[in-house]
């Protein structure tokens, strides 16, 4: 089979245009999301082992390293959500009779759902 032609590209191509840069930032959000999921898995694992195993985890959560990581991860996850919801109107087309549902309503509905989920979790964990 003939090898497909591949144009040589420097690995820094995404620094040449603003749009490429934000594309790469969007892809980078996945690294933080993945890292957080691994962390959450460890957290749940230690929690299940019992109070003596969970104590050091709680202590670590209070270090500046942890707070810093979670802050960056939150910004990354929010940027992921922003780009993900913004793409939805291109994937989902909802028709109301003859009219197409305006994209802003679809995106808005997802942010509303996001707000309910976020407020719901905070309420259940800290206020119930």
């Amino acid at each position: 089979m003939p090898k497909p032609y591949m144009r040589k590209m420097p690995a820094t191509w995404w620094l040449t245009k603003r749009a490429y840069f934000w594309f790469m930032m969007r892809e980078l959000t996945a690294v933080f999301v993945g890292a957080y999921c691994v962390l959450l898995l460890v957290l749940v694992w230690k929690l299940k082992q019992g109070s003596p195993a969970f104590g050091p985890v709680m202590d670590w959560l209070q270090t500046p390293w942890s707070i810093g990581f979670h802050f960056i991860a939150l910004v990354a996850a929010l940027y992921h959500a922003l780009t993900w919801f913004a793409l939805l109107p291109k994937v989902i087309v909802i028709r109301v009779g003859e009219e197409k549902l305006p994209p802003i309503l679809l995106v808005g509905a997802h942010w509303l759902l996001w707000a309910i989920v976020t407020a719901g979790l905070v309420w259940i964990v800290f206020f119930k």
Partner: protein
Amino acid sequence: MAKSTGETIWWSLFAAGGVVAALLIPALILTTGLLLPFVDIGAIPNVKSPGFVGLFALAFSVIGKLLLTVAISLPLFHCAHRIVHTSKDLGLHAAHTLIAVLFYGGAIVGTGFAVWVIWLFQPVSS
């Protein structure tokens, strides 16, 4: 062709993980990583920490278990898919198969471990 079927599965998991990562992950990061450490030392007035017992009861209730399983496993596949494809865009064609096996494999192992921890693991001491 087998390859296209495979791609469909990875893409579906990527999409499902993307939804979870957008809707659920910010709330979890905020709760476990940014609010819990401050609430636990009493830094926020009038908000009581759920403590070990409260967190345990929440995490391992039926809804908590389902939520954690979904919140850990699906974004792992989402993350793997993005890394596998973007590494190609960054010129890592030669290592593509290795990267794919490593990251999709990692997501499968992570999911397996999560299911075991959340649903099966019973520590002897507790």
